[in-house]
């Protein structure tokens, strides 16, 4: 088998035309998913069963099923339902882009809220008690003591999830979206050269992963200043 380097040089710029869409899928669902995760977290640790139980069920469902199936249900299944076609979210759900964002957001929100919960649990109980003894309200304790410490604790796991989400955006190509993977599949369908095209696609994803890793590495270092510095 011969490797067609011209085809690689030719297809990389074409695939990069989809990088904008890949970024949109990544950043929008990351932003919305993180916001959702915070809401889920607060419900989960509220200590009220009618808030925490639904959250646990939600997390179980979205972590326990393949994201591809979730995308299919939202994209193929929802339009069959009358109340969804007439609901306020129909303008979003009738577009494949909207469906992809909704699926990625709901999925990553479930994972990230569990990551955040791990961070919150990891905060030394004595620090929360010190805050309480100083007369800080529960809200103040959460915002000024628990959250900053928890964020640093869960940063490594969170960066893992961002990388995972970045890869999941490729699944949007299964519902007609022309992100980088979608374009690659189109090129392969035209050229019958899966190796060249998909391997160059892998290289692009690897570069993005490297950038994400380095960014989080920098952030972790910055947020750990108080631990690294010694007398």
């Amino acid at each position, binding site marked *: 088998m011969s490797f067609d380097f011209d085809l690689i040089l030719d297809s990389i710029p074409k695939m990069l035309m989809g990088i904008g869409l890949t970024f949109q899928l990544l950043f929008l669902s990351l932003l919305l998913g993180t916001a959702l995760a915070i809401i889920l977290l607060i419900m989960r640790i509220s200590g009220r069963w009618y808030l925490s139980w639904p959250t646990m069920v939600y997390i179980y469902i979205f972590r326990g099923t393949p994201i591809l199936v979730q995308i299919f249900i939202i994209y193929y299944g929802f339009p069959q339902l009358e109340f969804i076609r007439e609901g306020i979210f129909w303008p979003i759900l009738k577009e494949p882009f909207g469906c992809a964002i909704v699926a990625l957001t709901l999925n990553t929100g479930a994972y990230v809220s569990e990551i955040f919960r791990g961070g919150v649990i990891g905060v*030394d109980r*004595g*620090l929360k*008690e*010190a*805050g*309480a*003894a*100083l*007369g*800080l*309200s529960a809200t*103040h304790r959460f915002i*000024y*003591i628990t959250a*900053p*410490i928890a964020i*640093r604790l869960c940063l490594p796991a969170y960066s893992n999830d961002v990388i995972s989400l970045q890869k999941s955006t490729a699944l949007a190509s299964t519902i007609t979206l022309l992100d980088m993977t979608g374009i690659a599949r189109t090129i392969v369908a035209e050229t019958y050269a899966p190796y060249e095209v998909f391997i160059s696609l892998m290289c692009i994803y690897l570069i993005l992963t490297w950038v994400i890793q380095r960014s989080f590495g920098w952030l972790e270092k910055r947020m750990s*200043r*108080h*631990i690294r*510095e*010694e*007398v």
Partner: protein
Amino acid sequence: MSDSGQTNIILMENVDKFFGEFQALKNISLSVKKGERIVVCGPSGSGKSTLIRCINRLEEHSSGKIVVNGHELTSAVKDIDAVRKEVGMVFQSFNLFPHLTVINNLMLAPKLARKASKAEAYDIAMKFLERVKIPEQANKYPSQLSGGQQQRVAIARALCMNPLVMLFDEPTSALDPEMISEVLDVMTDLAQEGMTMIVVTHEMGFARSVADNMIFMDNGEIVEMNSPKEFFDNPKSDRTKLFLSQILTH
């Protein structure tokens, strides 16, 4: 309500505390007057920490009554807040906020709970850092300080809220021996200025020189309460005698 309720800063009446089946406090009654210094000692697991942690509601007592400066502790958030603003606490493990510099550790509560401006909070914080003799460490992080310095910061942090009472939960137990005296010195100064204090400690030299009253606890009960002189020279209970012989002979 008894008349003594007026002069007592802390009043505990028939307080019980259960952790599941285990009874940590048994029928504790205790009153603490303004300016009084009480040292609590006893074997580990005897309920000393639980006793003082009930006073600022870090533990919820199971039954009985606790009144701090006229506020009875109930499950109402308002009462708990009112009490916590009057009561400062120092922990065995310092519990400084690791992500904040020393000065920010001190400024946090005045800013949030007392609504002090940044400048006011800074002035309060520097005043107390000077009092515990480490103003030069203001901009360091807790991890950059020695244990003794961290505990002094923790004392200053509690004082910034201008408490009526200070609770100390084994404040020197986590310290290297050479750092114990710097912390005890600060506590002695505080006692001499008239601060009302309840100190859980096994530093018997400190207890002898500072305490107005000694409490010995065992199995969740107050076994003996007396002046230091009587307590050390003429302990009444056999349990107290045994405990004192164990900690004083080493």
